[in-house]
């Protein structure tokens, strides 16, 4: 029953999309405003795709195993929360979520851009609906969440236990608003090219959408990292894994884009560059999806891959890329720039320059193994040491520019008081020395990174002081830039001061290292609704302060599907996290335990949240000014 309802709604959406394209096309040819019917059609479209998704959620809640998707990804014993979250925790359901975001953004863009030319708005709508159709066809013919299975199984296969986590329940929706939100400025960019709408008011039509998608993308990446930290049990939060990179690539493009947009809005420069960035962002989102869902890359996060999906996305992607390039070449006109070498415009270009460097490095590292594998049959791995070696030295310089850039004036800048930067630099070097003096020394590169991060933080703080005096405060920029400085600082310190110990330990045994002792005091076997757990009780004692902490790592044996997972025990505080994992060693009564002390973890998360807060402040102030 639900299956039929879902399929009908999907078909209805196809018809609605075609209807919108037809109506918009007709409306283009006549004068006057945008036809009221188009608004209604667009609203119905969003509503019906949401209902379609609700139908799927209902199928998950009542465990309707006649649907293959529900059968493969759910289980009647699963807690209700994860039954619901399971709806978008799989390939088919997540595509439906994609379509929802595509449709809602399409509707809202139409509603909120009444001041822009009619032709531009209608064309954006048409392009967006072509994208929607592309995804609907993909859903219907390749990844239909409403496909039936017969005979109807009595029980589902269950959701991969490591996906049963609150962070992972909200991670995909956040990330998709970012990823898929980028579609609307892709469509707008194409519409702008076709209708020659290249005035600076074009920037007003897209800038808030860029900001929204950027904020959500950042949050999505953050939640994904937090999940990886809690759930994957290695104590890190970023592994430069292909799937992680896929989420980072559009982020770089978005970041470059909203910086360029500032210049475009103010000075009417860089129109084509802005367009290219709009096109690149969504293209990279789809590329990321292709890499993740096709299973072409080996990743720790691969949960839904299938080659046949790859082919479809690849065709879709190629059409997008060739279409964009073709249009771009047709419409490209040489622009007249009048830029001063020392001006805000130049500094924004510098931001874009670094963003492109990061983007190309990460893209290259992600896809290079595919090429070596195909061309030479030699499989290589490109992992953290590569990215760290290439990117971190450049970050040092980047942070300095990030501190200086926002202070520059439009058109022609002059840095008035150069001495102040020497003072800031001296302060940063001094603080860095203090850290070395009171704690421990670290590598030359780490020194440079800490110093440049401190430089950015101190100079942002001085901006606050200066702006408070003049009563003209650009909070959004200052908070985001300063928090980025803090982020790099905390990641650096976290890396430098992490402590990691690995032992094989027996019940009752105690191990000592540095000023800690660790004892395996007890093992407990417990039965839960959908798994069994061996729970260890380990005591960590700080010998100096005689403080003790009890940590309870678990080995879980899930019954549906039958899997073994290792749950880390984490004791979080503002200064440091204790992170402990335990695993059994076959044919022995020893347990392998891995203890880590990770300083300042909480502050890494807080820094990213503050970066996003800056984005939202800018968004609200934009909304207020309009």
């Amino acid at each position, binding site marked *: 029953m639900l299956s039929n309802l879902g399929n009908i709604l999907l078909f209805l959406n196809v018809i609605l999309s075609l209807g919108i394209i037809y109506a918009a096309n007709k409306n283009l040819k006549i004068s006057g405003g945008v036809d009221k019917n188009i608004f209604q059609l667009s609203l119905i479209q969003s509503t019906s795709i949401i209902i379609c998704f609700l139908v799927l959620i209902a199928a998950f809640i009542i465990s309707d195993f006649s649907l293959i998707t529900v059968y493969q990804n759910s289980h009647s014993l699963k807690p209700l929360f994860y039954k619901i979250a399971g709806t978008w925790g799989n390939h088919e359901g997540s595509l439906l979520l994609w379509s929802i975001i595509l449709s809602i953004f399409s509707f809202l863009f139409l509603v909120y851009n009444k001041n822009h030319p009619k032709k531009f708005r209608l064309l954006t709508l048409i392009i967006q609906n072509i994208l929607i159709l592309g995804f609907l066809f993909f859903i219907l013919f390749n990844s239909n969440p409403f496909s039936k299975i017969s005979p109807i199984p009595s029980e589902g296969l269950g959701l991969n236990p490591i996906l049963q986590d609150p962070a992972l329940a909200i991670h995909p929706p956040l990330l998709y608003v970012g990823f898929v939100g980028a579609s609307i400025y892709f469509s707008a960019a194409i519409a702008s090219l076709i209708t020659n709408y290249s005035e600076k008011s074009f920037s007003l039509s897209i800038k808030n959408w860029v900001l929204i998608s950027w904020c959500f993308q950042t949050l999505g990446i953050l939640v994904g990292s937090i999940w990886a930290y809690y759930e994957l049990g290695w104590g890190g939060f970023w592994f430069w894994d292909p799937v992680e990179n896929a989420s980072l690539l559009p982020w770089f493009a978005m970041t470059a884009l909203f910086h360029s947009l500032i210049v475009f809005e103010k000075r009417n420069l860089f129109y084509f560059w802005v367009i290219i960035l709009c096109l690149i962002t969504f293209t990279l989102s789809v590329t990321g999806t292709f890499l993740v869902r096709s299973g072409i890359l080996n990743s720790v996060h691969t949960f839904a891959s299938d080659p046949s999906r790859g082919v479809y996305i690849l065709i879709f992607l190629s059409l997008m890329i060739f279409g964009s390039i073709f249009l771009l070449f047709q419409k490209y006109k040489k622009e007249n720039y009048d*830029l001063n070498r020392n001006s805000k415009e130049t500094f924004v270009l510098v931001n874009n320059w670094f963003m492109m*460097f990061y983007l190309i*490095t990460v893209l290259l590292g992600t896809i*290079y193994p595919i090429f070596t594998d195909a061309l030479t049959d030699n499989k290589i791995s*490109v*992992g953290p040491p*590569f990215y760290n070696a290439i990117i971190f030295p450049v970050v040092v310089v980047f942070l300095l520019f990030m501190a200086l850039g926002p202070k520059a004036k439009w058109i022609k800048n002059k840095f008035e008081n150069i001495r102040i930067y020497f003072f800031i630099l001296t302060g940063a070097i001094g603080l860095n020395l203090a850290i070395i003096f009171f704690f421990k020394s670290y590598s*030359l590169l780490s020194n440079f990174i800490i110093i440049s991060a401190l430089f950015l933080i101190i100079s942002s703080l001085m901006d606050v002081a200066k702006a408070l005096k003049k009563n003209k405060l650009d909070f959004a920029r200052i908070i985001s830039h300063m928090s980025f400085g803090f982020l790099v600082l905390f990641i650096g310190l976290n890396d430098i001061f992490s402590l990691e110990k690995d032992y094989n330990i027996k019940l009752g045994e105690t191990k000592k290292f540095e000023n800690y002792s660790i004892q395996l005091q007890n093992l407990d076997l417990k039965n839960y609704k959908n798994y069994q757990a061996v729970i260890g009780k380990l005591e960590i004692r700080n010998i100096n302060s005689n403080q003790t902490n009890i940590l309870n790592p678990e080995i879980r044996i899930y019954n549906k599907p039958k899997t073994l997972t290792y749950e880390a025990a984490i004791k979080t505080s503002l200064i440091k996290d204790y992170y402990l994992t335990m695993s059994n060693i076959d044919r022995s009564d020893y347990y*392998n335990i891995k203890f880590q002390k990770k300083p300042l973890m909480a502050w890494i998360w807080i820094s990213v949240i503050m970066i996003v807060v800056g984005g939202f402040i800018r968004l609200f102030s934009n909304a207020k000014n309009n």
Partner: protein
Amino acid sequence: MKLNLLIFIYIFIFFSKFTFAAENTVDPNQIHKNLRCLVCQGQSISDSNSDFAQTIKLVVKDLIDEGKTEEEIYSFMSDKYGDWIVFKPQFNIQNSLLWILPYIVLIFGGFFIFSFLKKRQ
């Protein structure tokens, strides 16, 4: 003048501290992190609990005891198990583009911006 002197002192202390810090010890944990667990999905030897990972950890320990450097251990591993096992791709002809292209982009980008602005002074 005072300021310059201050900076000079800082820089001096900073570098001397650094040179004192540079000890040459091989950290097995670091090496485990840079080796891929071949039987797992995208995990490093350090994160994995598999038999394979346990074996590699023992091999690494032996190699360190033999006095091998970090780089020697990586090349030993990639000779034995293929390039797939090391997370840091070796710098050779096949991987030259991977290592060099980012910097070409960086230099070219900087050059582009610079020449672009110079023309329009």
